[in-house]
């Protein structure tokens, strides 16, 4: 069964690249353009993994992360946070909020794919 991935980012061009990348790896993809939309989609689509941008309108990535972790029904959702802010404190904060992994932008597509696969426990 194919895994479903939610891409949450407000930068159109990044969304396009991620969508292309994930589809190429054979995942099902859905897309959210802001934090609230992301949260709604997590609840309705129940993706296996969320590629979550931090700086988004309406709700930022941390808040989304926190709310997902607060709902027992969503415990199986993996969260990979992406951010253009690379400071140490932000990485720590994201992990503390319940993210499973963290990558800073710009990222290597290869590393991203392998991180996604390892989170979803798919052999490379």
């Amino acid at each position: 069964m194919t895994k479903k991935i939610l891409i949450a980012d407000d930068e159109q061009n990044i969304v396009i690249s991620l969508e292309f990348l994930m589809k190429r790896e054979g995942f099902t993809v859905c897309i959210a353009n802001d934090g609230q939309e992301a949260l709604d989609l997590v609840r309705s689509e129940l993706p296996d993994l969320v590629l979550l941008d931090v700086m988004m309108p309406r709700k930022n990535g941390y808040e989304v992360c926190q709310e997902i972790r607060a709902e027992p029904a969503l415990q199986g959702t993996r969260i990979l946070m992406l951010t253009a802010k690379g400071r140490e404190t932000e990485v720590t904060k994201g992990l503390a909020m319940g993210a499973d992994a963290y990558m800073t932008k710009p990222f290597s597509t290869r590393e991203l794919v392998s991180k996604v696969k390892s989170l979803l426990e798919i052999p490379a």
Partner: protein
Amino acid sequence: MTGSTIVVVSFLYLALLFAVAYVGDKRADAGRSIIANPTIYALSLAVYCTTWTYYGSVGRAASSGLGFAPIFLGPTLVVALWWFVMLKMVRIGKTNRITSIADFVASRYGKSHLLGGLVTVIAVLGVIPYIALQLKAVSNSFTILTSYPAIVMPAKAGTVPWLADTTLYIALIMAAFTILFGTRHLDATERHEGMVAAVAFESLVKLLIFMGVGIYVTFGIFDGFGDLFSRAAQDPNLQALMTMGAGGNGYGNWFALTLLSMLAVMFLPRQFQVAVVENVNENHLRRAIWLFPLYLLLINIFVLPIALGGLMHFAGQDVDADTFVLTLPMAYGHGWLALLVFIGGLSAATGMVIVETIALSTMVCNDLVMPLLLRYRWLALQGEEDLSGLLLGIRRSAIIFILLLGYLYFRLAGEAHALVSIGLISFAAVAQFAPAMIGGMYWRGATRSGALAGLSGGFAVWLYTLLLPSFAKSGWLPADFLQNGLFGLELLRPHELFGLKGMDQIAHSLFWSLLVNLGAYVWVSLMRRPNAVEAGQATLFVDVFKQSLPTGGAFWRGSARVADLLPLIGRFIGRERARSAFAEYARTRGVAGVEALQADAGLVHFAETTLAGAIGSASARVMVASVVQEEPLGLDEVLNILDEASQVRAYSKRLEQKSQELEAATRELRSANERLKELDRLKDDFMSSVTHELRTPLTSIRAFSEMLLEDPRIDLADRRRFLGIIVSETERLTRLVNQVLDMAKIESGHAEWDNEEVSLVEVIEQAAASTSQLFKDKGVALEMSLPGKAPSLLADRDRLVQVMLNLLSNAVKFVVRGKGRVLVTLSEADGGLRVDVRDNGPGLTPTEQQIVFEKFRQGGNTMTDKPQGTGLGLPISRQIVEHYGGRLWVDSVAGEGATFSFLMPCGKSTETKDEAG
């Protein structure tokens, strides 16, 4: 009313006074002082109001109307200065253990025996008429009361034989009473707590009784103030009393009397005693400053009503106005009220006599008798004998002597004047202390010779113009010198000295005596520099409030032994008390005990001030000098000490200043640091934002590049699309880098401004042309309303175009595709040119209106157009406009479009700021 009733009641009252005093003393011994109370202090100052006030004010009011008022106006005025002058006097008194006003003057001018003696003589001679006045008042009121219900004026003084004269016995009883009060033991500080308590008590008694009589006369006999005054106004003679100039007293006399009582309330020996010597706490002055004038006001409210009432009731009868307070209740048959009035008068008299004679006897003992005795070496040399008994004996004798002198004056001159006039003679005498006292507190240059000259000159004039005439009028001196002047010289007429006419005798005497006094004091003082002792004492007095004042010990050098000093003090104040005083001193110095004390300058000074409390500063100086080996200090040395002290003072002032400067610098540094931290935080935020904005396009570029590189199978359409994105993201990066640099330059002031004459119309048209493609692509209408002609500005054309481009591209970005409209208007506005760019987009909420001008913040959900905005356009535009002294702002209602406007000042529209903020 029988004499014996009155005597019994009087003695009962005196016993009550004594009981108050006894309790006061006991409480003081137990350390729970009842006079450590500002109200008691203020009440004790009311010893100023004697029988003169009690009976005499009414008498004076009856003859000169408001002429009684200056006696109380003066103190009320001078009290306003007490917080400076009296406070200083009290502080000096405390630090130098001053025991009397003679001691004060003697001590100030180098602990001079001669000066202390002179002040004592002036005080005794000056105050004796005043004491006589008290005796006269008590004796008269006693005599009048014994004939109740008949009203008979007493016989003339001197017509009864000496031994049948009640006044003599009153004088003796008062002497006995004073001795009981004031000289039961010798106090090292010369403070009499019991006496002060009793005086405060009697002040209350006389006030209440006098007001009681006033209320009785005003509301009992008459029907209130209105009735009384309107009835009096019907009599032209009485009406005159209610005006200022009544009784022939001009304003000059008013002024003289006011001045006189201003000085008297400070320098009468008894006032000095209660205000300075008996003061427990300087802060008590605060309450006295308003309570004492209030007391004076209260006791004077009914003076005029009683006088008018008496004049109306006793019109045509031979009743002395001085007795109205007593005779009015008698005339209406109120024997008990009359008796009460007598007690009130007795109260006023005893209060005055006790304090005055205690003060005078201290002066006579310390400044007159002791110095004389000290001339005989036997006193100093005779072994271990306790001399405190001798001191008490001297004081007691002095009390009896002074009261007998008072009685003598009463017999000799008492009938020549009314009560008030006798009192004024005394006032004029003590006024002579004013130059030496006030000058001593404020003028360093005053010398002993100056004070001596001033005092003796003023005193001589007083003697000649007031005291001798009062004897002459009574027939005890040939009276012809009054008319013809001394030696027949008319210029020397006592009441018209050097032809000065037109004043009453008091004003006349005050004028000449103070003129001579002040003149001699200043002139003689200026003739030579103060010597070493005078300079030292001057500093202790004048600079008493300065903190680094050298102690009295600083001016002493020599060698001494505790074994000599302790017995010496013991001889005067008792061995036990001397020992405990030394033990106390040892404790404050942190020394184990009396035996361990070093006999240094400090101890010698302590011994001397302790002794000064008992025998006065001048005598103490002589006594201490007799048991220690002294090396005299030269003037230069004293000046050096003073100089050192002032250097220390200046140094500590400098230190204080420095530490204040340091504190201020610390505060500045701290706030600068805060500002720096804030700037640092802003810079961090800026860097973080810039990083974020740079990484975002880089992310797309890298992702697409990697995918294109790794995957050759991507179809052509996708390749083209991805490459297009890479290009546009690269453009975005370029724009961002440019704007960040631009912003940084403007903010740091390094931007270049190519100012020239610019027409805003052209700027707008140029910007519109540049963005026309954008508008066309999105189907948005651009309308412009520009005037044909507008003033030109001196500015950087490209920058203004940049601003316009920014506003136009913002507008077009936010309006709806196909339906958008943008209107640009240029108008002349208040002080400049105004450009409005109005759109019909979604508008901005108030919060958004704030943040659109912050860096990297964009309004609205700009998802679709995001790559084009950097979030720096508006902040940069605002910086540019503000650089030219204009402003840029937005007006908007959410949902109804937005108008971005800027105002450029014109006229001298050059750069108003060299550096952009």
